[in-house]
């Protein structure tokens, strides 16, 4: 027995959903979705849950993560209920439900909160830099130090607890009976999806999009590795040097293409951009570009006289690592992969 809550759609709208109520349950969206199948039928089911405000059902659902937003459903919906955008909004909603700090929800729901958070961090970085008298060497040193500790602490304090909460919502609470061996057996599912996002290939006509994403993921992860562990900014190896240049160039060019796409709104995916989508691409772009320029300044030996450039890079980096990675769209990448994993567990469950 579930009680209907008509007020829920208003809440969902603050995550970006549109005219979900217009849905008259024709099911065209599910029929046209190339990722929906018998075991996981969507998006109509999720539209229905949302209209009825069945929060419990939504929170135990993995379907929102199984959608890769090709937009076919929205293009087909005779009522313009934008089911694809609803799936996207549900991902934001779920992200904020998984997040134990509650910050995710606040940032998604309010643009001004996000802006204030970005500004505060920027002020913090400058204040910190001034306390170091804008000493380039010290700044680069602490910058590198920050990168390393941010990776560890964001993962341990935010992402890991949130993943456990996700597991709790979709596996433990609904009493899905999973054997220990199933956890081990399905592990490969997680790794493959995390690195290849190969499910996108299931969407019709999105080979290019998948390829761009793949390059971006590889570029991003390897740049992370190159700067943090190979210490790109301080390296003497010309191999690492060139590698870093390449990676950062890949990141800012691919994100540039994405931004143009979002601006021209040609495809369904980019028709409705939420501020969080913009933050994600812009900051990724800025990361790639600023890293590239900083290294260039180092190579041209002008960084010492132009330390503002490094400050920009550091600000972008801090904002990225403290806002977007733990609370923003970056987490979708993580939850998606885990959703595939949990989905596999569910299918192996002993009922």
């Amino acid at each position, binding site marked *: *027995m*579930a*009680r*209907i809550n*008509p007020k829920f*759609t208003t809440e969902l709208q603050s995550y970006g959903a549109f*005219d979900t*109520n*217009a*849905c*008259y*349950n024709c099911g065209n969206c599910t029929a046209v979705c190339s990722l929906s199948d018998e075991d996981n039928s969507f998006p109509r*089911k999720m539209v*229905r*849950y949302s*209209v*009825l405000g*069945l929060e419990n059902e939504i929170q135990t659902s993995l379907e929102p993560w199984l959608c890769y937003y090709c937009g076919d459903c929205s293009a087909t919906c005779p*009522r313009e209920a934008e089911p694809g955008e609803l799936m996207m909004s549900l991902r934001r909603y779920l992200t904020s439900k998984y997040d134990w700090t509650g910050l995710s929800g606040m940032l998604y729901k309010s643009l001004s909160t996000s802006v204030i958070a970005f500004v505060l961090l920027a002020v913090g970085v400058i204040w910190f830099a001034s306390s170091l008298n804008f000493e380039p060497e010290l700044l680069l040193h602490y910058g590198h130090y920050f990168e390393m500790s941010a990776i560890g602490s964001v993962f341990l304090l935010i992402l890991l607890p949130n993943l456990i909460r996700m597991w709790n919502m979709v596996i433990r609470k609904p009493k899905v009976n999973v054997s220990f061996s199933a956890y081990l057996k399905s592990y490969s599912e997680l790794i493959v999806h995390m690195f290849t996002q190969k499910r996108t290939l299931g969407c019709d006509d999105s080979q290019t999009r998948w390829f761009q994403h793949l390059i971006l993921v590889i570029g991003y992860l390897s740049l992370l590795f190159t700067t943090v562990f190979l210490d790109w900014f301080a390296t003497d190896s010309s191999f690492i040097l060139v590698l870093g240049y390449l990676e950062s160039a890949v990141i800012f060019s691919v994100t540039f293409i994405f931004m143009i796409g979002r601006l021209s709104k040609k495809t369904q995916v980019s028709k409705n951009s939420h501020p969080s989508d913009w933050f994600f691409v812009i900051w990724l772009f800025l990361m790639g570009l600023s890293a590239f320029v900083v290294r260039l300044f180092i190579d041209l030996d002008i960084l010492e006289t132009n330390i503002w450039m490094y400050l920009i890079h550091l600000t972008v980096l801090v904002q990225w690592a403290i806002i977007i990675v733990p609370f923003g769209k970056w987490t979708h990448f993580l939850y998606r992969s885990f959703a595939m994993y949990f989905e596999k567990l569910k299918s192996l469950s002993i009922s």
Partner: protein
Amino acid sequence: MKKKIGVYVCHCGGNISDYVDVEKVRAEIEKDESVFLSKTTMFACADSNQKDMVTDIAEKQLDGAVVASCSPTLHLLTFSAVAERAGLNKYNYIHANIREQASWAHSDDKVGATEKAIQIVKAAVAKVKRSNALEPFRVAATNAVAVVGAGIAGLRSAIQLAESGAQVYLIEREFFVGGRVAQWDDLFVSKETGKELITRLYDKAMNHKNITLFTGAEIIENSGSVGNISLKVKIAPRHMKLDCNEGNLGKAIEVCPVVVPDKFNFNITTRKAIYHNFPGEYPQLPVIDIENCTRCGECEKVCENVDFSQKDEFLNIKVGSVLLATGFDPYEPKNDEFGYKTIDNVVTLPQFKRLVHYCDDKLVYKGKEVKNVAYIYCVGSRQVDGDNKYCSRYCCTATIHAAITAKKKYKDLYNFHFNRGIRTYGKQEVLYDESSRLGDIYLQSFEDHPPVVSKEGDKTIVTINDILTADKTLEVEADLVVLVTGMVPRQDNSIGSLLKIPRGRDNFFNEIHMKLRPVETVIDGVTIAGASQGPKNIMESMNSSLAAATKSFSLIASGELSLSPTIAKIDVDNCGWCGKCDDACPFSALTKTDVNGKLVAAVNESVCKGCGMCMPVCPSNAIELIGYTDNQIESMIDALVSTD
């Protein structure tokens, strides 16, 4: 007996001649000396043959004609028309069916088929020898129509008839006109309220000199037949003098001690025994509800217009046709049907409409503010177990419209529609769209698994297995449950019984043919309009009103009616009035009359349909059916069984 008969035997391409030797048939028939001309033809119905027949009949002065061809349902009218074009009375044409009855039925026996065809044609010739030219009966028709019921359908029909030139008696049983529509304020699709529509029609009707309105009036007797119908109308008094003084009247209403549930508001409010329906009602004259009035006389003391001396009046009117527009009743749910009358916050849709009308900024029922409204659809319609199998048509739209009205009128109101598939057909679909965009929630169940209304503590819960959510059990806590009651026929069918109007399976008045004759009844001269015929919204009621008015008017328009001459005829010498024929006649066409001191049966020519039911029951064989006399039928039987 005729001497110059023409016979045409048709090949029907080969349909007949492949099995029946048509040449032999022709040769056999030709032997009859009354047969002046006999021919075979490839296609009797072909234009060329029809022309030849006309020439033959006219030039050779034939006095009777027979075509031996296919079934009369196919071509009887064709060849009767040929006869008439040639100047031969159409009752002197007889049709013989040798295709369905001979060639097709006996394709395995050509000799037998031919023999049978010969006998059939002989029988037709025998009949045509004895047939007579007949002319239709003409009866004078009174140029007046009684319109029964002054709801929206009755008002619209009355105006249409008056504008066409007929006298109209508009007979309304209630003391106020407008029927149900006067009870609705906002209406779906149109922007005008029910009251505004009624005001418009009322003004138009009252300004037309041809319309006479009677309120508190009922037909209690009826006699005669189409063209000349006599009606007796009983008119109940209002117990008020005309030209009321509003001020004193207000006082009279105030002092009246009798308080009764107000039917106009479906009993959600009360009124006094002296009452108005609503401000600005029509006619704008109050009434004393004499059934509930205790004659205490309090009102008389303050208002000089009260008049207890008024009595029932009786009026005899004569009309050519009657148009019934007596409307419908809302379905009254059974006790405990979805908690009706057992759970305190369950109302019907008509009650809800009145409630929304009366509540201004907050929707309040029984002292409690309403936030969640649950509508349960198809109550009393599309019944699985009950008799009402039909869909009431208006209610999906009316409910959604009422829900939108309430949603827009009150803050934070939520609507939940427990339906069985929404039927907002045609232009009404925009309302469904609007309501879902406003956030109304639709839940659907199958007929065998309706929602359940129950009480949990002081809360009312509606539960459903929603087929749109994979049959999941869902519940809503409702502050008000609205039962979407359908339309049923008027509980009081006195007028239907009086006029002998047949009712359909749904118990509404029945038309002759659902598609082709949708506003006529089998009772000649009586037409039906509006929701008396079955569930209709206003637009559909108007369509049928205009059709019925036109049909009623067409009966009386020329001042004369022409009726079929093939009816029963009484042989006064043989009849001794035993009354058996009267018992057998399904149309009450026979009456007892006195002819020169002798009691005999008489046939009402405009009522008799020529069905022949009376003939076999008459013990003294005093009844003949014109066009099918004993003499004609016996001669046909003789011809069929003769062996020469």
